[in-house]
């Protein structure tokens, strides 16, 4: 069977599976639609959370990002896993005990304020749309690369699938499809990694192969890698270039942002008991960790493979570099997609790959007769082309395509659901039409989900520039706006409405302002005197990716100071806080 037919077969099979699950588990009322009737087992919820969390970026881009960043890539590994510790310890059990449907609903009741609810909804919609646009784009890209259809066609198919199971199934349908999607994506991720680990080191477990010796050399993989990348002028693989404070702040912003992301938090509303919420976060992180500990191994092995292909002989020797007309098959395949590009600057017919921006290496390169780096490699290729580079059979390549689509669809569906819940439950029922019937609210939720899919599809087809800043923005915003007020809402009885609103607005505006100033999100026009991300101007040397931490601190300080200057929360709120701090129902305690 040809690769393309095989890919269509595997991807088609997974789609039938997802839709079948959605029909079997469709939502019958708003409780099913928002929180899956609180009947999800902690392990299933853990898997669903893992699929919800691991996006197209985690699946396709992260290993490649680490391959090129080396140690600096650790910020993503620690940042996107450590947040679950905060979630499990500080937020999930208490929000589960609160027992309602959405994150803004908690903020509204705890701070007895519709204004707080609206601010929270705005933050939520903003974070979620920024994020979902990237997912739809991911679906389109995987379709166009593996199935050789137009990005737009891929997008429409992806939108159609999400439409069926998100609109029909609600949270219940999404949860069980996410369980299936997790299985597909983790299998697709680990199989090529195992094969490559065996090829390079003989050890089948990528996490161990990563620290093993390269077969037949007696040199450890990471030492060899450090050695070859530095002799090509690149920065050492196992040490970084970012400043200490910046690495610290980016990691913290990603962790806290993870814990503050509404589509992740809301997953813990679906389990039956408080104790399930705690342990479910453990399962979620366990399932996430399988991919997140494999990714750095894949990154280092892929970087090693890439350099070995380009530089088969001695560095600097006339015949040390790959002859362009002898390039391997995968090189040709991915050249057609533009992910690999070659430009023979010194016209020697060979490929030179080195760091031409490193002034210390310039003299050496000139001596070799090199006139600039000739190879550009898109980081996504490290995962997408891995099976071909390692010479794996076609079914593995088809599986990687299905895995990439599963990762993108599962995250998109989770995001679309929190957007629709924010509209139908927080805005329509909570603020504008409180007397709405359950049936009509469910209908409104489905309509909102359908509308959100259209907007997401449009954003994915024609992404505005700010989608690329999603990491800095979505996480910074979640860290600086939602996380502090939820945390204070549980752990402080003194923080009140005025403090929470002032805190959220301060964190939001400061973080947005800083990122806008350095990266130019919405207000930047050509020639505007900002948006150039000049590192010398960074506050305390913190890049826009890490600034959410300062926004978070400001939020905490403002919320506490303003609260201490104004009236404490009313008595029934104090009772509510007592209530969410204890797992058992208050009525049954005497």
């Amino acid at each position, binding site marked *: 069977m040809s690769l393309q037919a095989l890919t269509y077969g595997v991807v088609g099979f997974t789609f039938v599976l997802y839709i079948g699950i959605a029909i079997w588990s469709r939502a019958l009322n708003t409780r099913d639609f928002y929180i899956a009737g609180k009947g999800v087992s902690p392990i299933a919820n853990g898997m669903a959370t893992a699929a919800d969390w691991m996006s197209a970026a985690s699946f396709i881009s992260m290993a490649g990002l680490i391959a090129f960043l080396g140690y600096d890539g650790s910020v993503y590994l620690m940042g996107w896993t450590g947040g679950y510790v*905060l979630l499990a310890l500080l937020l999930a059990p208490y929000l589960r005990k609160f027992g309602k449907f959405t994150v803004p609903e908690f903020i509204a009741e705890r701070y007895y304020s519709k204004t707080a609810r609206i601010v929270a909804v705005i933050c939520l919609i903003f974070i979620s749309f920024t994020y979902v646009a990237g997912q739809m784009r991911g679906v389109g890209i995987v379709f166009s690369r593996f199935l050789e259809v137009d990005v737009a066609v891929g997008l429409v198919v992806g939108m159609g699938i999400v439409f069926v199971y998100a609109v029909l199934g609600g949270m219940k349908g999404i949860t069980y499809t996410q369980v299936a999607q997790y299985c597909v994506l983790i299998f697709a991720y680990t199989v090529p990694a195992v094969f490559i680990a065996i090829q390079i080191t003989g050890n089948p477990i990528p996490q161990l192969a990563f620290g093993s010796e390269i077969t037949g050399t007696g040199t450890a993989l990471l030492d060899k890698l450090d050695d070859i990348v530095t002799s090509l002028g690149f920065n050492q693989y196992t040490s970084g270039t970012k400043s200490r404070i910046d690495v610290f702040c980016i990691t913290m912003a990603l962790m806290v942002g993870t814990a503050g992301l509404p589509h992740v938090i809301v997953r813990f509303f679906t389990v039956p008991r408080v104790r399930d919420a705690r342990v479910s976060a453990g399962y979620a992180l366990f399932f996430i960790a399988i991919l997140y500990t494999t990714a750095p191994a894949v990154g280092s092995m892929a970087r090693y493979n890439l350099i070995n292909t380009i530089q088969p002989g001695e560095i600097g020797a006339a015949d040390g570099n790959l002859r362009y007309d002898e390039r391997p098959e995968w090189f040709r395949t991915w050249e057609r997609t533009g992910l690999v590009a070659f430009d023979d600057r010194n016209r020697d017919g060979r490929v030179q790959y080195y760091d031409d921006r490193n002034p210390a290496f310039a003299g050496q390169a000139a001596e070799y007769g090199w006139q600039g780096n000739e190879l550009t490699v898109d980081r996504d290729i490290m995962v997408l082309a891995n099976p071909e580079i390692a010479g794996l059979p076609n079914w593995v390549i088809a599986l990687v395509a299905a895995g990439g689509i599963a990762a993108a669809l599962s995250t998109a569906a989770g995001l679309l659901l929190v957007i629709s819940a924010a509209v139908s439950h927080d805005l329509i029922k909570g603020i504008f039409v409180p007397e709405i019937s359950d049936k009509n609210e469910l209908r409104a939720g489905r309509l909102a989900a359908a509308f959100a899919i259209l907007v997401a599809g449009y954003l994915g087809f024609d992404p505005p520039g700010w989608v690329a800043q999603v990491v800095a923005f979505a996480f910074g915003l979640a860290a600086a706006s939602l996380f502090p007020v939820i945390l204070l809402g549980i752990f402080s009885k003194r923080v009140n409405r005025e403090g929470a609103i002032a805190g959220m607005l301060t964190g939001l505006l400061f973080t947005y302002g800083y990122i806008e100033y350095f990266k130019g999100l919405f207000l930047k026009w050509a020639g505007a005197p900002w948006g150039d991300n000049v590192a010398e101007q960074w506050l305390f040397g913190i890049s826009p990716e890490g600034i959410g931490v300062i926004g978070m601190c400001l939020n905490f300080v403002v919320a506490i100071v303003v609260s201490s200057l104004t009236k404490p929360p009313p008595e029934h709120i104090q009772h509510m806080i007592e209530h969410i*701090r204890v797992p058992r129902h208050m009525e049954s305690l005497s």
Partner: protein
Amino acid sequence: MHSDNRLAYWRANLRLLAICLVIWFTCSYVFGILLVEALNTIRIGGFQLGFWFAQQGSIYLFVVLIFFYAWRMNRIDKKHDVHED
């Protein structure tokens, strides 16, 4: 529920939280970031220790930490008789 018991329960929870968060901070920020260079002089197999904490070890410890917290919390719930049925 007597307010004494409730207070004792909350204190026990906060104490456990403090211990867990110290471990969380140490294995990621201290070992993986602040002391990474010092730890990199120690090797386990083909890994430099600081690099291993940053890209592997911290993640394993996070997983263990959440299960540890969930297990200890269940015991504290039972001891203070606030557990769910």
